């Protein structure tokens, strides 16, 4: 109804992405998503269909080139760990992301260690070039 839903959605997806990265998929409740996005529960269900639908949108959003590579890797790691083993749609999207952004097992491993504070933040190919 005249609302610029496009913008609202983009902001909501970005806020949801941050929550999923911080808490993981299973530990993120709809209450957390309502709080973080500022979108009413009814609208979240109406627009995204489910928490799962919102996570798929987050995976699509980190495909965009303006999203940071750390965030992209974090979202992929959450998806790989919690959903991909049993979820064909998440597996398919992650396969696409890995190919499109040339993400290797080493990138994922380094990011995992960096998140835990066990190594520096730089990615392997950035180290090579320095």
């Amino acid at each position: 109804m005249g609302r610029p839903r496009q913008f609202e959605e983009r902001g909501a997806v970005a806020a949801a992405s941050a929550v999923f990265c911080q808490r993981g998929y299973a530990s993120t409740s709809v209450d957390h998503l309502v709080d973080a996005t500022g979108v009413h529960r009814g609208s979240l269900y109406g627009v995204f269909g489910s928490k799962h639908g919102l996570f798929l949108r987050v995976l699509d959003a980190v495909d965009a080139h303006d999203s940071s590579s750390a965030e992209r890797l974090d979202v992929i790691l959450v998806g790989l760990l919690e959903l991909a083993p049993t979820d064909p749609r998440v597996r398919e999207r992650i396969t696409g992301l890995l190919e499109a952004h040339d993400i290797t097992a080493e990138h994922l491993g380094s990011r995992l260690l960096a998140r835990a504070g066990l190594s520096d933040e730089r990615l392997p190919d950035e180290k090579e070039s320095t």
Partner: protein
Amino acid sequence: MSSNRVTVTPEHLVVEPVGLTKLWSFTRRLQFPLEHVRGATFDPGMRDEPKGWRGPGLGLPGRLSGTFHADGKKQFWNISGYERAIVITLDAAEKFDRLVITVDDPDQVVDSVNSALGAP
């Protein structure tokens, strides 16, 4: 103890209210083609959502059965305790846009619904 049995077949999602809720909800069985199902979410927070107006059905604290009307759409609620409540969203082809139901094993039901939707 659950109030609903949810079955996912290769083509359909079937929701069957169990026991007395079958009477109160005036519903024996709901069946939806999978292509009309948008997704499922474990959501105990539905406890605090506005339910809209009821008809027909029953409402007691923590127990809720029947058809509710909100936002110009119908929702089917069959709840006995929100700690195992799930929300299933349906597309515009269905008369309900949402089902809010209690199940025995929310994680298992939610995963089986969402995985079935992505199956080739």
